[in-house]
């Protein structure tokens, strides 16, 4: 308890976060490079391309966040919308 109550928990220190980003970046590169050793079977052609999973995952998420954002402009209302 005493340690975790300190204002600067080791996990939120900028240095740790920087290191986490570096490790995360290395893992990302590794997953793509691994495809050379463990080839991804392409069932429909494109899905076997080098790094397809990475690009597809990234851009699919980008698209979904953007779609959600645009829908949000039309559909978001204040929290008390149904109370009034």
């Amino acid at each position, binding site marked *: *308890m005493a340690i*975790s*109550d300190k204002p600067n*928990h080791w*996990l*939120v220190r900028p240095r740790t976060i920087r290191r986490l980003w570096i490790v*995360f970046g290395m*893992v*990302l590169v590794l*997953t*793509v490079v*691994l*495809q050379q*050793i*463990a*080839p*991804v*079977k392409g*069932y*429909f052609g494109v*899905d076997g391309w080098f*790094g*397809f*999973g*990475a*690009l*597809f*995952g*990234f851009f*699919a*998420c*980008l*698209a*979904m*966040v953007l*779609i*959600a*954002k645009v*829908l*949000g402009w*039309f*559909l*978001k*209302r*204040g*929290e008390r*919308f*149904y109370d009034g």
Partner: protein
Amino acid sequence: MVEILPPAIILLVGAGLIALTRGYLRDAVVLLAPLATIWAVWQIPDGVTLTMSFIGYQIEPIEGSAVRRLFALIFSMMAFVGGIYALRQATRLELSAAFAYAAGAIGVAFAGDLITLFIFWEVMAIFSTVILWCGGTDSSARAGMRYATMHVLGGVILMLGIAGTAVQTGSIDIRAMRAEDFSTWMILIGLLINAAAPPVSAWLADAYPEATPTGTVFLSAFTTKTSVLALILLFPGEPILIGIGIYMIFYGIVYALLENDARRILAYSIVNQVGFMVCAIGIGTELALNGAAAHAFAHIVYKALLFMSAGVVLYRTGKRKCTDLGGLFRTMPLSCICGIVGALSISSFPLTSGFTTKTLISEAVIFEGLAVIYFLLAAASAGVFLHAGIKFPWFVFFQKDSGLRPKDAPWNMALAMLLFAGLCILLGVYPQPLYALLPYPLEYDSYVPGKVVFYLQLLLFSGLAFFLLLPAMRRTLTITLDFDWFWRIGFIRLSNKILGISAQGGKILSRGVDFFLGVFRGWLERLLGLNGVFARSWPIGATAIWSAVLLSTYVMIYYI
């Protein structure tokens, strides 16, 4: 003669005993009743083992098969672990209702005919509403009423279909059918309402987060998954389910992305996950149905785990909005880790149960050569990681320091979370026991190196997208409009309008009637009033002339 103890009855008796007992005796019932139910589920052989006669129909309250036992097993396991989780926190009424609700789900799982299915279907609707009302707040009371209305409506539609089918075919057997006439469509729609299919998906995210921390854990497990089982039994290979499933998958992702309430995020992701199952049922091959069943099993475990983690946070802090939470990993490490295990499982991360079950569905899609569906499911897998896999743990346990320093889970809640977290990983590492329980024989290895690499790329890069897009996903104090606007506001306005118009019309009509009555009355008064034609005194001459006229007219008519 009843040779087998119906599992649903055991749990129903357990629910009754929970309501009647107190203290350690009640604890014993909470723990032993589900265990006895699991044992009884195990004893049910294939085929019909119990028949009765009811309103001229032969009903079959217990029919066993692999897929029915699988669902009944996970329902009773859920009652067991949910019971541990709620042991000290839930009220007697809530726990009792939760067990009766689970009993309803098990009853549906073994229902051999449509009437039995309907009866247990309604048992579930009633007791799940009671659980919602145990939330004890104004908003849970109102949400409970909306929930009950939706499920009563679903029940009526289902009953309509069952009655129609019974009259048309003379059979109430549960067998695979196609939605091709009015009755079968009604059955399909009735089932889909419980699966939170469009356009009524909103009932789920509207209701579940309003229950207590313990209540939501139970609610997350049964209603939608019994619907999945009923669809597997009644509508395997119904093509329209593929489209409905895909809609549910993306609806869940987009609405969860817009949501601020942590438990509502998880509720939307139920719709998302059930969408995967509905889509698989629509494909309808043996592999796809195996996938739907396995995924439902795994889903109940990791979704309950996620709601348990969110429930502990709500129980300890009283808060459920992402904007109020954050940084809880400091003092709630166990809830945080269990939440992450659940989140990784729902994202079908390798070594978790989601990976070994959801990839079955993808495999079925590949086998059928459905390229578009395959890529949509792959995008959705990335989206699940985005909206639930990272978003839930990040906003609740990390994000910013909210200053909250709550205690971690009480022992029983912690134990329940550890049991399910362990099961998530066990099924991820060693899925063979689950595969052996599936409805069709399965030779499948999910850990092909290339497939693992593909999923790691897909998921980790969606993780990258999440952190890069964080500024675009800042939580706002908002709710998101859905089709429920129609029944919460639109229809009310419309009915007020119609009432207004009819009131207006009524006024016009009554004015018209008044006018004509006035004219008629004036005419009568002129004729019969004090000074009217008939009341006036007439001279003798005039009377004599009128008499002569009348008489001659009479004679002429008589002559003619």
